[in-house]
């Protein structure tokens, strides 16, 4: 397994380095339109071909990686932080708060929040910078995504509270803050990590879905979600290059999970 984790780490490092500054090493910018070569298949000049406007898909993939790998984990972080606070608090306090959390999360999980996103978009000026607009959308997505992980965190905290080592720590006279910091947090962390990595691909796809509704990343900025929309045409498997963003997404998340499993094992 060490080899797998090592490979995952190398792969992620390479992806990270490639995505940091694609303008340094890609041949074209993400928005350059080679209008004489729309929908071109892969070639030396365009390793993943061009899109419908003749833009280099390879360049767009890496610029999109930078955006998606910044925003989706950020949104996941927001939701996990909110979940840690809400779920952790409810699980720790128990009683009424626990019940209230369950009720609130049931309610949150059932509501069509897409309309709230539409409302927020309506209040934003149309000339707002595309990145600011999408960052706000992602922040909102993150804030609304607390319910499911909060239940998980709450259950984990409840379980830890009834564990032997926890009773031992209390019996040894540990202060509440120390119990929280030394006993609770390290044991809840793997659960939060797991929720985090489940949320990352979900937010990447949420961005693609929002794009179809006009809430995604505006032209000409690329994103994984936006590029995944090219699959809407249900292309044949012969056009393998259209699956590149999906493959990269799966590879990145799988690698992250491989590294995560090491962290879990060490807990």
């Amino acid at each position, binding site marked *: 397994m060490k080899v797998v984790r090592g490979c995952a780490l190398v792969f992620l490092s390479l992806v990270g380095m490639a995505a940091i500054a694609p303008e340094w090493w890609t041949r074209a910018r993400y928005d350059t339109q080679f209008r004489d070569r729309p929908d071109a298949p892969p070639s030396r000049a365009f390793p993943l071909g061009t899109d419908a406007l003749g833009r280099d898909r390879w360049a767009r993939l890496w610029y999109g990686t930078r955006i998606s790998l910044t925003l989706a984990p950020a949104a996941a972080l927001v939701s996990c932080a909110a979940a840690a606070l809400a779920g952790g608090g409810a699980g720790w306090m128990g009683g009424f708060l626990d019940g209230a959390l369950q009720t609130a999360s049931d309610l949150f*999980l059932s509501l*069509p929040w897409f*309309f709230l996103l539409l*409302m927020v978009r309506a209040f934003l000026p149309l000339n707002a910078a595309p990145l600011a607009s999408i960052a706000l959308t992602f922040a909102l997505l993150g804030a609304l995504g607390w319910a499911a992980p909060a239940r*998980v965190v709450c259950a984990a905290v409840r379980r830890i509270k009834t564990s032997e080592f926890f009773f031992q720590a209390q019996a040894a006279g540990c202060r509440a803050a120390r119990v929280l910091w030394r006993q609770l947090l390290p044991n809840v962390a793997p659960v939060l990590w797991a929720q985090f990595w489940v949320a990352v*691909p979900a937010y990447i796809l949420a961005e693609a879905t929002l794009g179809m509704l006009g809430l995604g990343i505006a032209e000409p900025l690329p994103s994984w979600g936006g590029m995944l929309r090219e699959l809407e045409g249900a292309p044949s498997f012969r056009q393998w290059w259209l699956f590149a963003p999906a493959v990269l997404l799966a590879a990145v*998340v799988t690698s992250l999970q491989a590294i995560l499993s090491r962290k*879990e094992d060490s*807990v």
Partner: protein
Amino acid sequence: MVLIVLAAGFICALLVRYAPGALVDERELDPHLSEENLAALRAEKASDASVNANFIRYLRGAVHGDLGYSESNRAPIAALIADRAPETLRELAIGLGGAWLIGLAAAIPAGRWRNAHLYDGLSSAAAALLLSVPAAVAAYVCLLAGLTSGVVLMIVVAPKIFRFARNLIVPAYGAPHVFMARARGLSESRILFAHVLPPSAPQLLALAAASVSMAIGAAIPIEAICEVPGLGRLAWQAALARDLPVLVNVTMLVALATTVAMTLAGARPWGEERKPEATR
């Protein structure tokens, strides 16, 4: 539970009513419409503006079995739900049934042959890969391969079932009484059904309840992409058409299903099953 469902309905009504474009009709841009007809169309839309009045009217109707009328589908909502529910139920049955079969079938060997590290690694990697493929992408790929929406749901849910089931079954196989049973020569099927699954039954039951809620959540994008005439597609179409009565009903249905599933899952939701990962 009733309060949650009602609150979900009312908040949904508020969200839809105050979302941009709630009181417009696409036909307003039709150049064939005269000023008079345009005014009539706008007046008709404006008459639906009050959330409170509409919600109270809805509740009164619901008491008498009338769930309202869908303007975008031009049909009573009760009939629409009755028409679409069987498709969604069938899809859920195929998806969940298949996911449980695959998930358990893949998890049991990982516990049974505890030294089969290659199998365990490969199955876990495959699950991780599938978990990182968004449901919509899975739906597109399955469409290409000519698979049905039930199979898509199965592909989306199975890796999650596998992960949690594996984390329950592997330590169960490692329990001392299982070693004892094996030493006394009990058959593997007897060990599985008498000594491995029963101790994990409460968690598996909780997982079963939670997987229903998970499958309902995944069914909406899958039905929308695969254009399956189920409740998920109905909800999607209603959202795009700002069909408030349909959205309120679907939201209340989802709230009911979520609450019931979570209640059945009880105090043993997802996170707890991750514990054995550390014990391995």
